[in-house]
């Protein structure tokens, strides 16, 4: 008892001090971090100028399937502007509901229809993000991969290339590159 008390206090203090740290996913919450990542991707990725959504003056992020972010995403993106485009969050229940988007987060619930979804988005400048295993290898662009309590990224530059997206080297150097580059 006597031995264990200082440790417990230290942990508690540590936890307390980390409450305000937005980028600490272990404490703030995994999806809060992932929501922030979604927004941050916009800064490191360049969309082609003829992206259809750009003409509507909005930067569209679509959540396909069950929304795992809860209110976090809306909180983070509220009022945000990317490249003078107003950020808009859409939610789509099925691939058929998908409209033109800059970023599409494919929820795990859509695992079964993944090839269809990817098929559907093939050729559009859409940054696809998901949590599913081997998502990048299967043709997705960025996958959130949990390394312990930290969120790590897998990126498939070939998929990005096919979607005519330029991903900043800054982002690439943080990620695990998957998929044959030649495929892209």
């Amino acid at each position, binding site marked *: 008892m006597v031995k264990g008390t200082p440790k417990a206090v230290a942990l508690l203090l540590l936890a307390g*001090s980390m409450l*305000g*740290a*937005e*980028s*600490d*996913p272990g404490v703030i919450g995994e999806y809060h*971090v992932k929501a922030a*990542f979604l927004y*941050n991707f916009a*800064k*490191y990725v360049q969309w082609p100028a003829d992206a259809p959504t750009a003409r509507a003056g909005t930067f569209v992020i679509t959540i396909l399937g069950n929304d795992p972010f809860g209110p976090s995403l809306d909180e983070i993106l509220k009022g945000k502007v990317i490249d003078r485009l107003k950020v808009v969050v859409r939610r789509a229940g099925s691939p058929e509901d998908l409209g033109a988007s800059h970023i599409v987060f494919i929820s795990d619930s859509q695992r079964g229809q993944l090839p269809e979804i990817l098929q559907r988005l093939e050729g559009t400048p859409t940054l696809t993000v998901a949590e599913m295993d081997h998502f990048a290898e299967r043709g997705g662009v960025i996958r959130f991969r949990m390394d312990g309590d*930290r*969120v790590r*990224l897998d990126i498939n530059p070939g998929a990005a290339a096919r979607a005519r997206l330029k991903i*900043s080297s*800054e*982002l690439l*150097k*943080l990620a695990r590159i998957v998929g044959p580059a030649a495929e892209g």
Partner: protein
Amino acid sequence: MPMRDVSLRRMLATTTMASLGTALLLASLAFVAYELITFRGTMVRTLSIQAEIVARQSTSALVFGDPESGKATLSALGADPHVVSAALFGRNGTLFASYARADTGGAAPGRPRSPQGHFFERDRLVLSRPITFDNAPIGTVVIESDLDEMRSRLKRYAVIVVAVLIVSFAFAYGTAARLQRALTDPVLHLAATAQAVSSRRDYTVRAVSDARGELGLLVRTFNDMLDQIQDRDAALQRARDDLEGQVADRTRTLQGEIAERKLLEDRLRAQNTELEDQSRRVQEATRLKSEFLANMSHELRTPLNAIIGFAELMHDGKVGAVSPPHKECLADILTSSHHLLQLINDVLDLSKVEAGKMEFRPERVEVAKLIGEVKDILRSLSAKKRIELAVEIDPALGEVVLDPGKLKQVLYNFLSNALKFTPEGGRVSVRAHLEPGGKFRLEVADTGVGIRPEDLGRLFVEFQQLDASASKAHAGTGLGLALTKRIVEAQEGTVGVSSEVGQGSVFHAVLPRLARVASVETAAALPSRRRAGRTTLLIIEDDAQERAWLAETLSSAGYGVEVASTGKEAIEKSRRRAYDGITLDLLLPDMGGWDVLKAIRAEGPNQATPLVVVTVVVEKGVGAGYVIHDYLAKPVRSEDLLASLRAAGLRPNAGRPVLVIDDDPQARRLMETMLHAIGYPSVEAASAEEGLALAAREAPVAVILDLAMPGMDGFEFLEHFRRTPAGRSTPVIVWTVKDLTAVDHGRLAAWAQAVVQKGGTQRLLEELRTHVPLAADEDRAGRAAEGS
């Protein structure tokens, strides 16, 4: 050591080095400081660029929470060996990633004080830059760099500075030493030269210098100065040598002269002693001679005086009747006596002229009167020989100032000579006329026998008579003409004669018309020479009745009186003549009595006249300071007035005797007899002391005084007598055989009314009659006073 004690050379070196060192040091420090500041700026700039790069490259790592990536970015800083450590901090200051150089032990930098900035610590520079993403700060990068490079630079700078200083100093010292030598060498040389000159006194030393400018001028001036000193030295030396030579020469000459002079002096001294002896002997002889002559004159003339006096008395029948044959005999006695007296006088005069002791007392002379007097003396002779005596006087002759006695003597000699040698019924003329050159000529021409030309030269020589027979026939001393010549010449005149045998002779004397008046004061200031006679009083009184009473009372008592009725009149009268006494009324119409008194005493002949105040107001105090003999208050009784006057020494004349003072009994008897014969009472005193006593008792009307007396002499008597009240105004006639000097005459002029030489009584009698009027005359005078 204070700078003023240091040598010039060291002073200059020190000054140069100090200024050079200071300048270099300051310059170096400025340079180093500038370099350091610049280098620090460069360091900050370099480090901030690195920080900026790190910040950019770490953004994604921070954004996506990848510390490994951050660490990888930071580790690139390892390329800079001076970066000690670096760190990335999250937005809240949490350490995100860090880097530390291997040798530092892995210590990360502390949290940044501000997101952007830098500061230098003791050994490092800490710089921080913010990391921004999406225009918002998301963290901070902090880099710490060590200052080793700066240190090493500083060390290098220090080495460079020291090297520069050393090289500069060495170079400067060398240059300065050379330049200094150009400055100090001449100065030191100059100093050394001056030292040499001053210590050795060698002015031939010269400073040598090829310096130009002020130093050259200094050296040249110094040398010039030395030249001048040397020249002067040489001149001085020459002058000194010359002087020494001169002094030696002069000394030799002087020694010779001194020796010579000493010899001369000795000789002179011997001669002087001899001369002094001789002089003493001569003086003694002269004194003895003078004494002898004086005694002679006295001893001879005293008995002669008696002989002449008594003979005169007898001849004149004053001592009884004389028969004609007796009278003839007496006349012969008188003639012989007079001749003898004349002889004695001539001998004395001659000796006096010879001795230069004859004194002349010039005074104003009336020539006509003087000739008349001489003529009178010789009247009997001329009458006897029925010689006509004519007198011619030049009307233009004017004033003549000469000693009348001597002039008379000259004339007498000429005239008596002429009468002697002019036959009966002849003619003698006396002429006086002007001669050019302020002189006048006195001539006596006769119709006598004349003188042979060869005899003319002997005429004026002593004791040379032309022939013995002539001398027998014409009684003469043989001295007359010689004496005349001497007397005239002594007065700066000349005598001469022209003659033709059988026709007559003309004797002449030319004399200065105005002789120089001797310095002897004749009019002395003593209250003396008054026209003595009646005791005369001045009555000052304004009241007519009172005045008449005073005049009557005083006249009756025998006084002569004059009156004044106002102060002004009184002062005028007091200025005009001396009174014997004054009575003064204090209340006068025109002025105060005291003022009158003051005026009378202030000046004029009455400053010491006895004065009696007669007045109704008696204020004795007011008169203090003036001599007042008595105060009488009106009304005054006549007895009081007369007593007061007697007390003041004022007595009327009537009934008072003549006092004769003479040590010679014959003379006293002669006087007594003579005075008795003419009706004067007399008292006689054989000495001056007795005379004073008698004078006090008898209040004499006059005094006949001999001068040469044993004991108190006549002069002393007069001195005492004139101070007594009775003696103040009494006439004194000096009757003496003494030869009087100018001083004697001066004293007597002040004190005595007349001086008569003994040798008969006629002149004495005349003088007495002049000064003491006979009773009959007095009565007339008294009446005249009353009438005024």
